[in-house]
């Protein structure tokens, strides 16, 4: 019997982002923003007659890619002769901002340089925001898609993963309860996990 997937015998892994893609109905503004304002090289474009999917009346389109470093690209689909469906208009408000792209830079100086570049090109850009392990600036593209440029403040350690797993385990318990309404409930539920971890590590000394 032919082994169709020998790699499945070991641990599968991914190797970073190849591309992300979104639709646009603003071809010129999108090209000018990504290529000319951000300076990301336009590196690839696919053009096709509806991909042959006549039954769903798939529009003819251009699918084009900008180089965003480390062999990753950000890509767009422009569906010729179509109107933007209302459900694909980016909503206002913080919830829709969760759907964003964050690019990495290496240093604070680079982050500052990007902030200045964007400001000089007339793009509204946020101040630096320092999170737990990231420092970021935020802005929007002409499609109102949220974008972020970030730098890592420290490497992620094994302890971060341990902590993340306890957070998610506590959260899953609360979600299953159907009565979860606040972060305070999560923090209180998580304390049980952390206490148990400490007791297992130091049965006598731990709180």
């Amino acid at each position, binding site marked *: 019997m032919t082994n169709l997937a020998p790699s499945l015998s070991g641990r599968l892994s991914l190797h970073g982002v190849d591309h992300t893609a979104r639709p646009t109905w603003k071809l010129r503004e999108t090209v000018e923003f990504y290529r000319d304002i951000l300076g990301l090289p336009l590196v690839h474009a696919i053009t096709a007659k509806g991909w042959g999917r006549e039954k769903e009346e798939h529009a003819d389109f251009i699918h084009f890619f900008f180089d965003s470093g480390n062999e990753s690209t950000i890509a767009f689909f422009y569906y010729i002769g179509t109107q933007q469906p209302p459900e694909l208009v980016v909503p206002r408000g913080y919830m829709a901002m969760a759907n964003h792209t964050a690019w990495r830079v290496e240093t604070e100086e680079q982050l500052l340089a990007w902030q200045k570049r964007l400001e000089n090109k007339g793009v509204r850009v946020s101040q630096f925001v320092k999170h737990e392990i990231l420092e970021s600036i935020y802005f929007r593209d002409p499609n109102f898609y949220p974008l972020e440029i970030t730098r890592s403040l420290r490497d992620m350690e094994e*302890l971060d993963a341990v902590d993340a797993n306890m957070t998610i385990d506590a959260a899953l318990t609360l979600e299953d309860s159907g*009565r979860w309404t606040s972060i305070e409930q999560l*923090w209180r539920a998580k*304390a049980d996990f952390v206490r148990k971890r400490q007791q297992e590590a130091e049965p006598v000394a731990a709180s």
Partner: protein
Amino acid sequence: MSGFYVLDVPEFSPLVRAAQQHERCRVHPVVAGYRYVEFDCEIEIKRDATGLGEAVWFGCLTGGLDGKITSFTSESIRLAPTNEPVLGV
């Protein structure tokens, strides 16, 4: 016993330092990656005392809480012991 857990990573060390200066907090040594900051009555920690930015401040109890939040603003947090169940009754 009431208190909160603080993950032993650099971004939360300002919170530990503020707790160490707090007369009503007792900071335990690190065990399995977390410090326990113990209190036995209502306490208030001011953000100014920690020097934390807001993004980290509003997540400062992410290590876990044995107690309840009586107020949480961008300026300060007040915590107190509780026997109330996590999900209410």
